[in-house]
């Protein structure tokens, strides 16, 4: 994937004598001592990251961590004290007013925490604002605004005023305004923080849905780690103006860079972050039309499994369960045929979160992870699924040390 935006050594210091503060930072002094000595506030220090085309990059941090300052530097609403911000190779940090305006018009759109909709304009005029600024003609503006409103499902409300809409609808208008200009990069500054939890969940889902077709480069600011984990292809965690860790959701949860990140991730819903693969094992599938009942029973006993997938040319065609085969008293030499298999078996694509497997697990059957071509790649045993959820990495380690067993067995026992 191509690199769309790149932030290098960016600092922001609020206050008069920026150079002094910068050199103090270089000497390793902290944000607090600089503020105490000079009264200057360090907003962002030494931010470095790159965002690839078509990815959702989440910047997560608590209030005062500098995340809003950082995102405002990306479109020049706040001028960085030093460093480079490259968008398609153009440095926003050094751009003059005209160039900055050109970049804002063509490459960046922003969605705001409190919507920032214009109360004196209709919904359609709000959405068309970016186009109006660019000098797009009235009828084309309207057409493109309606298209963007269609994408967020608000087309029927085009001619109402924003004050008549609910919070969730208002933010959809904000999103549509960002989409209407068709710029490549969408900056979203805590766009869902002001919404009710249920609506927030809906909006997150809708954003992901939209992103699937739009493939924008999105920089998403949030203070909510759950939100970051749901949305982010990659996540940067900020503290005191510094990025403390950048990585995928999985990396943030499983390999926290320091105690701060670890403390954050401690309470999160692991089931949502961990994917099916983390609990998966080799399928050990039986071949359709070749394997016999006896062979199936023997394999299951060896592997200590209750059921196995049956595949035809790598594609899953059914599942045979130990108890079914035993109870029927079948001829052990008979081939596995359709009537002996459960053909209503669960499969999921790669990357499915553990949370989404809960429903399938209740059937007791293993869950197949299939590739895009429909081939069975891995299998998640129902009991392993619950075992995975019950333990955090530290506990796993502790359990392993105590008992001398490997973590997998520990999990099976707890399940």
């Amino acid at each position, binding site marked *: 994937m191509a690199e769309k935006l790149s932030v290098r050594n960016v600092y922001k210091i609020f206050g008069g004598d920026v150079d002094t503060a910068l050199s103090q930072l270089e000497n390793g002094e902290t944000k607090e001592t600089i503020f105490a000595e000079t009264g200057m506030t360090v907003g962002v220090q030494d931010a470095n990251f790159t965002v690839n085309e078509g990815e959702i990059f989440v910047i997560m941090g608590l209030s005062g961590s500098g995340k809003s300052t950082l995102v*405002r530097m990306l*479109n020049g*609403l706040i001028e960085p004290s030093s460093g480079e911000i490259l968008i398609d190779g153009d440095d926003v940090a050094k751009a003059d007013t005209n160039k900055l*305006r*050109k*970049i*804002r*018009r*063509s490459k*960046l*759109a*922003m969605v*705001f*925490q*409190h919507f*920032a*909709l*214009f*109360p*004196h*304009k209709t919904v359609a005029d709000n959405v068309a*604002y*970016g186009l*109006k*600024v*660019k000098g797009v003609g009235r009828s084309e503006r309207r057409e493109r605004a309606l298209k963007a409103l269609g994408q967020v499902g608000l087309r029927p409300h085009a001619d109402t*005023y924003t*004050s*008549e809409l609910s919070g969730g609808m208002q933010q959809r208008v904000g999103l549509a*305004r960002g989409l209407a*200009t068709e710029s490549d990069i969408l*900056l979203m500054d805590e766009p869902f923080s002001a919404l009710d939890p249920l609506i927030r969940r809906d909006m997150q889902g809708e954003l992901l849905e939209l992103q699937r077709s739009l493939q924008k480069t999105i920089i998403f600011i949030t203070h909510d780690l759950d939100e970051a984990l749901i949305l982010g292809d990659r996540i940067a965690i900020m503290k005191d103006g510094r990025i403390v860790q950048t990585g995928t959701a999985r990396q943030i949860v499983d390999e926290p860079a320091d105690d701060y990140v670890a403390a954050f991730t401690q309470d999160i819903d692991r089931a949502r972050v961990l994917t099916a693969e983390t609990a998966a094992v080799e399928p050990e599938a039986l071949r359709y039309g070749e394997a016999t009942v006896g062979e199936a029973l023997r394999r299951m006993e060896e592997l200590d499994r209750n059921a196995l997938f049956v595949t035809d040319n790598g594609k899953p065609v059914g599942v045979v369960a130990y108890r079914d085969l035993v109870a029927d008293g079948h001829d052990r030499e008979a081939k596995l045929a359709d009537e002996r298999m459960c053909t209503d078996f669960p499969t999921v694509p790669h990357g499915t979160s553990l949370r989404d497997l809960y429903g399938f697990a209740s059937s007791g059957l293993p869950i197949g992870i299939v590739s895009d071509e429909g081939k069975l790649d891995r299998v998640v045993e129902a009991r392993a699924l619950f075992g995975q959820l019950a333990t955090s990495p530290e506990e796993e380690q502790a359990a392993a040390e105590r008992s001398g067993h490997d973590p997998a067995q520990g999990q099976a026992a707890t399940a």
Partner: protein
Amino acid sequence: MFSPADIVTIPFGDWVNEFVRGFLVPNFRGFFQTIEVPVEFVMEWLNSFFNWVPMVVFTLVMALIAWRTAGKANAIFAIIALAFVDMIQLWGDTMTTLAMVLTAVVFCAIVGVPVGILAAGSDRFLKVIRPILDIMQTIPSFVYLVPIVMLFGVGSVPGVIATIIFALPPIIRLTNLGIRQVPEDLVEAAESFGSTRWQKLIDVQLPLAMRTIMAGLNQTLMLALSMSVIAALIGAGGLGLVVNTGLGRLDVGRATAGGVGIVIIAIILDRITQGLAERKQVHTTSLWQTLRGFFQSSSSSAKEKQLAEKAG
């Protein structure tokens, strides 16, 4: 008892005389008289227009505007009050006062709104003009009547110019305030889409500040009306002159009649401009829309009011 005056006395009055008579008048009389030209033009035009329009037509138009902006009660008041003015035989003077006041307000808006916009955009500029505005509002208007007579002569136009000086501060202050009160995130939104300063001003800041600006315009209007008696001292006509001659002849009745005329105009214009300011609250963005609003059905204006309440 010791006082500084025992040692040094300052001929302050002489200095001012020297400055005005010796410097300002000879060097800048031409400049000031050029300023007079547009003011005179607008005032003459308005004056002859208002005196040309038949009383009944004028009253009905005022009543219609009052109805559209401020409601039925105010419309009825306008009809009764203007009829009263006509019956006490002050119609012509009232129209002259109205022309003078509106001229002053027009020029206050032409000067005041841009100055207010500049002040909103620059803290430094605001720091410079704020003491000037304070002086303009606190200095007794009699003090600058004399230099105005020296520079502009006597008559209605100098009267209007004195009125402009007196009535200018509120529109500057409230334009500045209105623009500064536009929520920061709306301004950021405008900037983030690449607006020029002009686009931001016209499309976002001014419409959102319009309500406060209209409140400033209302105050400017009221100040201009209250100045009409003082302006008459330097030769301006209209109701102010009626009051002044009444005073001069100790004719209480005539002075009161002139005063009542001013109050009536003040009430009508105040209600109309306040009504306009309230309508500005939500969506009407331009003078054209406001004007068009006069002629929309009353149900739609009721709906707008509802929306305004919701937004508030």
